[in-house]
């Protein structure tokens, strides 16, 4: 090997070494950031985390330091996400079946639908909140559980659709062919295919939930806020992100600490959801 060759080798080696250092450095940095953020939240939130927080409604003056908990927000968020999931599933699931199993393979309509959902996927939650608000005004609704459900459903629909579509695309055509060859109608075929795609559907549901439950901007204008648990769709609903936000805005430090505790609760909920999603998808792929 001549001298230019070995110089090149040396440069290459140094370049590789440099980047290796940078790579490890950035991974360590990210890890460290996570620990730092989680640490901060835990540090300020754990002391205030107790059973009361989960089970009680905010008493009068809760935001100024008096007693209570965030049960209003926990249940409100759960109601809301349940409603949004139902609404979103009613639309995204049939749609995915339609473009994957009803429409011909290279249909222009399929491409168009996927394209439009790609765009919807990128629209920020605040725009959905504003649109939801405009829609509510148009329909004569007040800030309520229903309003929140509509806005969040709009937000999570593209997420659910995209994730479910990925799974449906991968299904080989054998199953649908076998079903049709037995004399099934397309609707009967869809029912069986849905069964096969159930794990994928679960994953998309969980993914959508994780996103929808932690978002504040969609519910800001549309769901209202209350210290109570909504008894009907027409009543305002408290949500966890807003509850955290309002508690943080309080001048009383104890309330701020409770905000951190609430944040822990929300994060734990989301963690459970995303870990379940991962677990389901790994079980599914093992089959």
């Amino acid at each position, binding site marked *: 090997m001549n001298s230019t060759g070995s110089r090149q080798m040396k440069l*290459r080696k140094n*370049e*590789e070494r440099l980047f*290796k250092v940078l*790579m*490890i*450095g950035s*991974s360590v*940095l*990210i*890890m460290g*950031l*996570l620990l730092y*953020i*989680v640490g*901060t*939240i835990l540090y300020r939130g754990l002391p205030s985390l107790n059973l009361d927080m989960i089970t009680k409604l905010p008493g009068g003056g809760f935001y100024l330091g008096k007693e209570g908990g965030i049960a209003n927000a926990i249940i409100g968020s759960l109601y809301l996400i349940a409603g949004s999931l139902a609404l979103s599933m009613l*639309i995204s699931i*049939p*749609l995915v079946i*339609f*473009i994957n199993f009803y429409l011909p393979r290279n249909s222009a*309509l399929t491409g*168009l*639908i996927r*394209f*439009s*959902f*790609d*765009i*919807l*996927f*990128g*629209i*920020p*939650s*605040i*725009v959905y*909140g*504003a*649109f939801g608000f*405009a829609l509510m005004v148009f329909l004569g609704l007040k800030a309520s559980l229903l309003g929140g459900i509509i806005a969040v459903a709009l937000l999570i629909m593209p997420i659910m659709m995209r994730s479910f579509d990925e799974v449906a695309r991968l299904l080989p055509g054998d199953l649908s062919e076998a079903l049709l060859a037995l004399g099934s*109608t*397309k*609707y*009967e075929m869809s029912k069986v295919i849905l069964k096969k795609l159930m794990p994928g559907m679960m994953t998309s549901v969980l993914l959508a939930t994780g996103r929808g439950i*932690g978002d*504040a*901007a969609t519910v800001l204008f549309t769901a209202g806020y209350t210290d109570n648990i909504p008894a009907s769709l027409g009543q305002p609903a408290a949500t*966890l*992100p807003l509850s*955290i*936000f309002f508690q943080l805005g309080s001048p009383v430090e104890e309330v701020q600490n409770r905000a951190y505790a609430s*944040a822990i609760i*929300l994060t734990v909920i*989301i*963690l459970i*959801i995303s*870990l379940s999603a*991962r677990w389901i998808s790994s079980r599914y792929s093992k089959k």
Partner: protein
Amino acid sequence: MKYRRVLKDRLARYYMLGIAVLSLLLILIIGLSLLFKALPIMKEHSLGSLLSSSSWKPFKGEFGFLPFILSTLYVSLIAIILALPAAMLTSIYLNSYASDRLRRFFEPVIDLLSGIPPVIYGVWGTLTVVPLISEKIAPHFVEFSAGYSVLAGGLVLAIMILPLLISILLEVFRSMPEEISDASLSLGATKWQTVKKVMLRRSIPGIIAAIVLAISRAFGETIAVLMVCGNIPIVPKSIFEACYPLPALIANNYGEMLSMPGYESALMLGALLLFLIIVLFNGVSRITLNRIERRFQL
């Protein structure tokens, strides 16, 4: 054949078609509704003056959107500049160099990061980032900074879009078939050369898609940025000055919407602007991406 079977089948098909049509129209419906709500203010002021004026004094009826548009852009730009290199480096490392154990360990970390609700990032930003900027970083560059700044917003956003970037990049890298990297290695290339010349080049469409997605997220993130950016409607002249991105504008003033004439319409215009920027951005990049992808497919 039984009529009920046929009926069910037909109903199902009509339902699906209806939904398909509706979903195609959805973007249009959203845009038009926002437009409709924003009309009042556009009738009073010309669009040009709305977009180019930096004077935001709603009480006087002055609605200049420039500060907000620019703030949104600046903050997102900083976020991407900070997040992209870190995300790329980490993803490459995790995909091509790290051991299996490390990878399995890191994945829940990414999940955790993306699961933390934006509010928390906002809080953490107020606690940590703002003082950091105000006390440690800014003094080197400017005389005074309250900490609530473009940089703070950008930094917080960067951390928020990191998990998204990393998970998409990992997926993109993972999708490269092993045979290609094997071929490169068997030709005598080092791992780093393989990564640089083969994997990255091949992944360009995916990388661009990841960036587009991350920028979209950054543009639209509301709560976290709101808490650290300062919320002052001026065009920031340095990254240490306060700013006021569009989402924050809409969120902050929601309560006052109905109290002033034209205010609601102004905020809706803000939402419309945000919507248009993102739709255009996403639409154009999707089309370009499709074209690049087609050229890359052999």
